[in-house]
């Protein structure tokens, strides 16, 4: 699995190497809340993650900071 993951990431980075160069003043659309997870509402995002963490056996992938809980 590790190998597959590394290969996918390598292909992903390699595939991105020829991307358009976007200037800082062209990023207004990208900076809107609608382009973020849960529309930038981090408290709601945290609660969603908490529900999934307490009801499912998997976790991770959403950043290293999440905090522990006795719900699992």
């Amino acid at each position, binding site marked *: 699995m590790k190998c597959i993951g590394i290969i996918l990431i390598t292909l992903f980075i390699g595939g991105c190497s020829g991307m358009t160069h976007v200037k*800082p003043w062209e990023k207004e659309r990208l900076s809107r809340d609608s382009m973020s997870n849960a529309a930038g509402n981090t408290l709601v995002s945290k609660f969603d993650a908490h529900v999934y963490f307490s009801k499912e056996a998997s976790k991770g992938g959403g950043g290293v900071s999440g905090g522990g809980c006795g719900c699992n």
Partner: protein
Amino acid sequence: MQLATKLSLITCTLLTYSALQAEDYVSVQYVHYDEESGRTTVMAPALEISKDFGTDYTLKASIVADSISGASPTWYDSSSGASAFSRDTTALENITYNNVDYDDTRTAGSIALTTRFASRDELTVGYNRSYESDYESNELSAEYLYNLDRSRNRTLSFGLSYQLNRVLAKEYTSTNDRLRDDDDDDDDNYDSSSGASKALDVNVLTAEIGFTQILNATSLAKASLFFINEDGYLSNPYMNVVRYYNQNGNGTAEVKAENKPDTRTAYGLTLQYISALSDTLSANISYRFYNDDWGIDSHTINTELYYEYGDHWLLGGGVRYYVQSDADFYSDRKDYFTNEFYASSDRRMSDFDALSYRLNARYRVNDSWSINTGVTYYDQSKHFDAIYYTLGLKYYF
């Protein structure tokens, strides 16, 4: 002409810079969570504040207080009453799989400081703490965001966190439960009448490396690999299994505490693509693969769609699909386990899939205030479904 071009470029840059500046805010959210038939109800008010100090520092802090009541299903010896700690050798007719009532409160807080360097690379250092009557967790984390080009179109992130959790195992009967305990102080078991308790540690180390690429002015992609290592008391002190069911036809079985391995190592991969489909419509799709050495594989696909209606409304909806395989040591049968070392009937260790559907809306009242609301329905195949509502207010300053 050249001067005019330069001036317009500077003006445009300043305007864009202003638009891209994160706003300081205070956010208050309330979540009400209900499982079917009132199995579990959670009320969770939360507060978050984010404040920039100049352009180089951002401080973010949050606090949440969960109030949980309801019941959790497990095996128990009903001749001793409906308690997760009703563990004994018992007659077959007394073995019951049912909900055991519980109440708890949890208070959790987090604080994180982001520092931006001259290169505009970022270092975020954070601390999380969570406290329940039978569980305590402290976590330190650090994440470094490295810009691979001057326009910040391509970034690498490196994250590392260490979590020390402490489980308070209470009310163990004196003879029937094996508590994970490797020291020699001969205190593995507790008599419920004494009220004794013992703290058992769980160490969690998480590492993640991520890559983000801005593809063009309307889309970006992210990928990450993560690693999680857990070490310590990973069983749930309230979960039981049944062993030696009617062995040799003696009409009895033993209700024992579950026993999960002391270590767990997991790897995973996430991929995400976010795109503006038009000036007012945005789509966000992500995939996660997870694998651990308990035998659990899972796949998660999450999609979100947002529509900006006029100057004030942001309307959103999403669907999430999750599927997992079962752990090597899981069975929900009462006639399955005999003397296997690892054994669990915790349904979260079983194979199942789950769908969740979300709708939410935010109304920006003016430059200083916004209100939001949402509803999420979560349906786990085989086991249960739940619905939760959010209501929030945000003040920008």
